[in-house]
């Protein structure tokens, strides 16, 4: 239990923060300050970490990790970021189950705060050696929730063929309802990537264009973006629906149902002429589920 018992402070002392600075102030410095201002919150983060390390949670237990960290609110941002930034050392020897639960919980809680101070730590994780795909995707989603132009650009820059973080970035972009994001993802889908990537792109486009989400946002300042984003998503997905088959087509169809935009029907009708009978039948079945 020696490794599992490493205290957060000790781990931080070992860590390099060159890439994890927040607003030009090293994270370690910020944490030291937080220890004085909110010692109970820092201790609470450390306690969650120690408990998760000692008792690897199952799937349900890992959700509780997120709840506990989320409950600490914005005062916990710096200690949570510090823990994420030092994960390569402080969590190196944790059981897989503990490490994943802890990092996903931290990143969910951090993402929920939508605090720009988190950006550099999230970027550092995504450009670092993190090997757990779910952790990387959750980090990208947290960055996507920030959704400033620079966050979108960062993720778009990694959502490219061959990039180690391609899939994580695609997942993260689903949280960022910006026109340049949908333009990028649509272009990727138009380029006919492999099936797994196409499914990931479709799911993100479906989420970006989600009719229910946009209805939820009807009174927000984002509302003006709804029509171009949804139109673009629907059109790209409709083209891909014809271009792919099997389970990939099914996933694209589900995304189209989420976007629920008339542009999809128009695009499908335009493409219908040159398709094989199976695709024509699939289009017909899908159209029954579209507006």
């Amino acid at each position: 239990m020696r490794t599992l018992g490493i205290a957060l402070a000790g781990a931080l002392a070992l860590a390099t923060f060159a890439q994890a600075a927040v607003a030009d102030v090293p994270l370690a410095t910020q944490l030291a300050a937080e220890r004085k201002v909110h010692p109970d919150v820092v201790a609470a983060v450390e306690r969650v970490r120690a408990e998760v390390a000692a008792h690897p949670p199952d799937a349900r237990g890992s959700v509780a990790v997120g709840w506990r960290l989320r409950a600490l609110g914005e005062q916990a941002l710096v200690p949570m970021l510090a823990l994420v930034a030092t994960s390569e050392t402080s969590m190196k020897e944790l059981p897989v189950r503990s490490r994943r639960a802890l990092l996903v919980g931290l990143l969910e809680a951090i993402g929920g705060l939508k605090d720009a101070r988190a950006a550099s730590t999230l970027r550092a994780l995504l450009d670092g050696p993190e090997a757990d795909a779910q952790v990387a995707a959750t980090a990208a989603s947290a960055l996507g929730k920030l959704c400033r132009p620079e966050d979108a650009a960062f993720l778009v820059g990694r959502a490219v063929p061959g990039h180690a973080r391609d899939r994580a970035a695609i997942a993260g972009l689903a949280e960022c309802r910006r026109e340049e994001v949908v333009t990028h993802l649509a272009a990727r889908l138009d380029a006919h990537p492999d099936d797994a990537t196409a499914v990931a792109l479709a799911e993100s486009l479906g989420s970006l264009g989600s009719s229910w989400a946009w209805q939820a946002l009807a009174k927000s300042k984002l509302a003006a973006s709804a029509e171009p984003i949804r139109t673009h998503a629907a059109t790209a997905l409709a083209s891909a629906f014809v271009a792919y088959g099997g389970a990939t087509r099914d996933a694209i169809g589900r995304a189209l149902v989420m976007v629920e935009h008339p542009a999809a029907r128009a695009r499908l009708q335009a493409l219908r002429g040159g398709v094989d009978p199976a695709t024509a039948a699939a289009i017909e079945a899908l159209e029954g589920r579209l507006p």
Partner: protein
Amino acid sequence: MFGRRALLACLLASLAPLPLGCGGSDDAGAQTSDPPAVDGGDAAPKSTLGIVVDANRDGTLDLANADGEGDHATWDAKHGAILLANLDDDDQKGAADATDAIVNGDRDVADLAPIALRAWPDAPDGTTATLSIDERSAPNVRLFRVNGDPASAASYVAIDPPSLALSADEVRAGVTLAIEARNFVTSTAQDAWNGYVDLTLAVKGQDGSSVGTDQARMRVAPLLLQHDLAPTESVFYTDLGFESAPLLKGLDPACAADHGMTPTGLTTGDQWAQDFFDVGYTSRPGPGGAPIGMKIAIRSAQDWRQAGQDALDYFRTLPDWGTLYLHTENDDKQSDNGDSLDSFGNWSVIPPYTKGSESFPLGRNVWGSVASDHPDSGYEDFVRAQAVQPAFNVDTSWLYVGHIDEFTSFVKANNARGWVLLAASPKMARDMLLKMQADGHGQTQLFVGKQWPDANYNMTIPAAITIDDLLADASIAAESQYVQTRVDAEVKRLKDEIGLSDDEIVPIPFLWEKYGGYALAHQPGTVNLLHFDGTVVIPDPFGPQLDGSDPFEDDLTTRLGALGLTVAFADDWNLYHVLSGEVHCGTNVSRTMDAKWWETGR
């Protein structure tokens, strides 16, 4: 009415030379001097040397009337004897009875299938016979010779290896035997044991020449998993003291009313009583062909989960309860869901149905499994190998916990089919909330008086949220819509496979959220309910209070009540909902084992 032990005593006594008053006039131990024409099957003259098994499945050996046992060399829907995997622990030694070479007390006698070698009183001097078991079955069964009172365990002597050489005197006197299986069929692999046990009796004359042979085919009973329509005998939950009180406040009266049951609290630290064990059973024909056998408590294939072992330790102490634990080493799943799919909340049984010419009288095992995200491969193969409840898989890879019971349930209904499929419907939940909002209730709160956990896991963070705020949450909206498309896809697959009509699929409203890239119920997942004998215990939805009642609760009460169900609610918020589980996840049941699986033809 015979008890199980008395039954076996009579059954075996029927092989003795004198009738012992166990009924069945043709059970008398008739010994004849007919010639040894033992060529097996229906052609064999009765009352000559030959193998007798309960091929006609009436629960007794018809020694005097070989034809009465029908064709004992084949095994199909109408013929063929059955043996049990003897996995209960009748002598309470802490291990299955099949693990040793003794009959573990008189009660264990009932778990053995009887076999007799009919006597040939006039066998010439020098006659010999051998009884052998096919090569694949031999290591998987244990054969006993019965010397004396068949009701007494002391009369049973194991024959190891299971091959018997008989002298002329033994051929003349006949032999009484019994057989148990050491395990179920465990694999569908071509080179694995398929559960059929072929017994061969070869008789030779003094000169060593063959006088004749006889063959009988038996089959080890499969493990059957319970479907939700079978009558319920017991309800289980994990007893966590005062923390269990809110659940029990709803569960206790529901079990008591009309059912006379008191839920059994299991002593372990894991509240997910649906997940760490499952209950199945295995059976063979008893008196009049009615099934007898044993319940099987199955531990989930999660070696880290102590509660699974605790459950087996408990159930092993119950009379006629066996235990089973299969965990495939080196099968650690690398998917995000890990081995959560091994939890039995991810394993269900489609109730019995017929579609066209295909009939599934015992239902079908159904669980979440796709190539990229599947349960323990060994356990999956084990379930498939049981054969009588053909498998069907759905995709649960989009769920954080990954269990089929997060979005479906099967419950009894007063329709022609006798049951319906309940399916999660975020769309319905959203439509209901939008209507409430349109009706001017946007500022009314859901989850009033409920809390989310704080950093110390004390329930102190108020959960109450207005309808307006909930509907303005784009993340919940997007995830709920995503879930609707996934549920629709899986329900369509079930619908097509089973042949369900639209009115046999009942939407159950609640919204979802995303966590770690996967879906979780945001409102209490009311589809995750406990069903027993027409009663459903549903998670309290803690919806908004409009005019003194909760529209979500009212809706479920009305629509499920219209199906003939008795509807009860239980508060599962603190102990289950906030940890992404609900009433079904926290309970379990033991049901009756009335099905005659051997008639399915599978």
